[in-house]
């Protein structure tokens, strides 16, 4: 993306005023999307973003500048601006020479999305729309979205690291509105993987259309969710987002370092039920949060955060790891070249247990079964969270019975970890997500087996 000589000169410029560490991050991202709404293919959009972000670290201060101008003049100006922002003391000249690092890469993309005709992509939208509408006249609205992106990055730093990655992601979603006596209800289905158009070898868009329609129709007959503390069984793949939000964020070294995490100073302690092993794994080929190289030039890692209930480690980026004299865990990520990297999750999941999922439900007298959680919010300092339930049912006498709607799960992440008393031998990854932190969004995956939380507060609308 840039020649090595230009990179070396840019890094030298960035280090000229006494920087201790400098980094050039170059990104070239192309994206395309198509939207069908109200029975019509509404819009196709193509996007191109290209530029470089340069950071210079002096002591505890990071200076950062970015530019869309990748010429030598543009890069040099950004390097000087970043160095000035970091307020270097004016040390001697430093010569930087970068060389590529060895990185293990997953299988290459089989069908690059740019090689697929737009008509083929648009055709998927139409298929999903027709399949959803065929579920009955109760379906009053269908919208479907196709999106792909190719993100090429290059990272080089004053430690001599040079790494490149080529990240292709493909996404498809269907949303339905059903109307009936209880008003309007919605259902959604989405899939996204770090692969090319071969996503659709396994993802059946008609099936997705049918399932999102069924979700909406089911909710028409759903009763308002009850309120109160009850046992909650979370289905496979349905609740990973809860552990991402309510536990994962608290294990990010930047928040830990500021004392803004409930997990600070607790490595080695029992923080969860002994059943729980929590892993963050950027190496999971094809998953939505996968990459070969993170946005700081480190290879993706397989990081065990909690082993059998004991806190083993946090997730690290370059900055925090340098301070601790250790290596980054490959969790330094950023939304784009216009953003500073920070500690971010990749694919975060709870490993499978030994219980029969059916037995977990059968052993629950009364409670709530959550098939799919929606978006949520967490206070990482306290672990308090709120999540919407997009598909949930009552459990009565050990059986899943009526669907419920408009409910939230409210609780505290660390408390939930200690209250997991059953873990199924099944496992599934959940829907592709975008994790937001300090205003930056990055793609993440999550997963769980079927599991039971002994008590969790459901906030519903039932009087």
């Amino acid at each position, binding site marked *: 993306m840039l020649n090595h000589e230009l990179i070396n000169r840019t890094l030298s410029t960035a280090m000229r005023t006494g920087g201790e560490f400098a980094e050039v991050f170059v990104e070239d991202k192309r994206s395309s999307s198509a939207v069908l*709404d*109200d029975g019509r*293919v*509404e*819009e*196709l*959009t*193509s*996007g*191109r*973003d*290209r530029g470089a972000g340069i950071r210079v670290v002096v002591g*505890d*201060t*990071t*200076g*950062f*500048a*970015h*530019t*869309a*101008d990748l010429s030598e003049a543009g890069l040099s100006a950004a390097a000087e*601006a970043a160095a000035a922002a970091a307020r270097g003391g004016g040390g001697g000249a430093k010569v930087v020479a970068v060389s590529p690092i060895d990185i293990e890469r997953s299988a290459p993309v089989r069908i690059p999305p740019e090689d697929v005709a*737009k*008509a083929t992509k648009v055709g998927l939208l139409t298929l999903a729309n027709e399949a959803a509408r065929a579920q009955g006249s109760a379906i009053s*609205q269908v919208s479907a979205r196709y999106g792909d992106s190719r993100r090429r990055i290059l990272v080089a730093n004053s430690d001599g690291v040079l790494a490149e990655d080529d990240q292709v992601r493909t996404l498809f979603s269907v949303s339905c*509105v059903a109307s009936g006596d209880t*008003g*309007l*209800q*919605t259902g959604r289905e989405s899939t996204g993987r770090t692969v090319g158009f071969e996503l659709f070898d396994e993802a059946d868009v008609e099936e997705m259309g049918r399932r999102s329609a069924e979700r909406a129709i089911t909710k028409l007959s759903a009763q308002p969710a009850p*309120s*109160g*503390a009850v046992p909650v069984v979370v289905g496979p793949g349905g609740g990973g987002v809860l552990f991402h939000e309510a536990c994962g964020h608290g294990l990010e070294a930047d*928040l830990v370092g*500021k004392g*803004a995490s*409930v997990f600070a100073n607790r490595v080695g302690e029992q923080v969860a039920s002994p059943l729980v092993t929590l892993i963050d794994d950027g190496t999971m080929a094809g998953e939505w949060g996968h990459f070969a190289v993170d946005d700081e030039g480190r290879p993706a890692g397989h990081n065990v955060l909690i082993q059998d209930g004991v806190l083993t480690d946090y997730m690290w980026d370059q900055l925090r790891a340098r301070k601790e004299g250790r290596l980054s865990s490959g969790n330094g990520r950023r939304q784009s070249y*216009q953003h*500073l990297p920070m500690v971010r999750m990749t694919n975060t999941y709870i490993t499978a247990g030994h219980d029969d999922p059916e037995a977990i439900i059968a052993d629950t007298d009364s409670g709530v079964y959550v098939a799919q959680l*929606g*978006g*949520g*919010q967490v206070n990482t*300092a*306290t672990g*308090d*969270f*709120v999540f*919407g339930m997009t598909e949930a049912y009552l459990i009565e006498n050990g059986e899943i019975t009526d669907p419920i709607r*408009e*409910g*939230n799960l*409210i609780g505290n992440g660390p408390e939930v970890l200690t209250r997991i008393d059953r873990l199924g031998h099944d496992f599934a990854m959940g829907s592709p997500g975008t994790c937001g932190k300090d205003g930056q969004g990055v793609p993440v995956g999550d997963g769980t087996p079927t599991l039971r939380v002994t008590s969790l*507060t*459901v*906030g*519903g*609308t039932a*009087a």
Partner: protein
Amino acid sequence: MGEIPESRRLARRLVSRADVGEQVEVCAGSSVRTEIRVYDGEVESLTVAESRGVGVRVICDGREGLAHAGSWDPDVVDTLLVEARDNMSFAEPDDRVGLAEPDGVDAADIDPWDDRIEATSVDDKVAIAVALEAATRGADPRVRGVRTSMYADSRGESAIVSTAGIDGWDRGASASIGTQPLIDDLDGSTRTGYAGDAAAAPQLLDIEEVARLAVERGVRLLGAGPPTTGRPLVVLEPRFTATILGIVAGMLSGELVVKGRTPFGDRVGEAIATDAVTMFDDPTDPDSLSASAFDGEGLACRRVPLISEGVLQGFLHDARSARGLGVSSTGSALRSVRGTPSPGHRSLSVGPGEGDLDAFIASINDGLLVASLQGLHSGVNAVSGDFSVGVEGVVIRNGELAEPIREGTLAGAIPRMLQDVARVGADLERQPGGILVPALVLDGLTLGGGSGA
């Protein structure tokens, strides 16, 4: 501004390349941003950067295609028209699709610009963030740290030019601060607070007040436990009125009406709220940081009445939604260079009622003063208006503030909630984004929590 800005020249140049029978609209903008984060008295990060963007929309025979780029480099920009045309060929025609036509409404004389943002040195901006952190730490002995103390500003300009005769340019600038204290709770756990401010210039930011508020908001939740399930009167400070009414205004988008996705679609002229409720969108209010001369399609922004004394007046429209209902655009198109326009509110205002927050609290036997709302983006069914959100707050008992609660939920339905607005406050408070709203008291919401049935 004697010289024509580069964004406007770029937009005009691209529009001039339109083919016969083709509508082309180009939106181009640039911004300069400074962001300073301070931790423990030191600058943690300092970002100084300029961004550019351009979006091209091509329309022909009711079909629409888009292309955008984060660069004004000729090799990138030159491909946009071709890309947008190609995209257009795969879209299906819709007679609502078309550019906004100039409607003769003059743009308000608004120039939300203050030279002091550019003139203030980086050192002085750093000093603001450092002072904010120090003030936050000093506001209460229980503050044990500050997660982030931040100063940010941005100056932006954008042009919108189209073959329909639109040729607008405007600019805006604002500065903001925010601080998040970490506070020791009684049981040794950590609570947080947050407050922020935004203004047209760094010198207008109220550092002391932001620090005080951030800490007060955290401190008043110390010792909070789960709530008792019930139906208290819910008291909203103006910042939460802004949040809730923002959701209401979102449901008054003309596009949702056209697509049958709002419960208010067929209710113009009807009382959808108690008669104490008057709400309008006024992007021409020069005191609002969200004021703007032009909307996202280049039409003049204007005051749009939404609810008058409880009666629904109409909806927020862009050109497309207006065509769908056979009305005129209200100049309410929002857009970024990355997407198509869609109608929405910029600067909501509410008509004043009677009484203030203290009087409301004093008059309530069983109530809840809201301290935070969580999960709003996931907990509201925008189609039906049903909502269930997480809540923290302070119980009101016999006219006085009592114990704090957390991990509660607040549930109801927007249409019903508007009919249950018990009180509208007299004092309008400007929110950092520009929204001008009073305190509210809501009846009929359900508070749920851990100790409920």
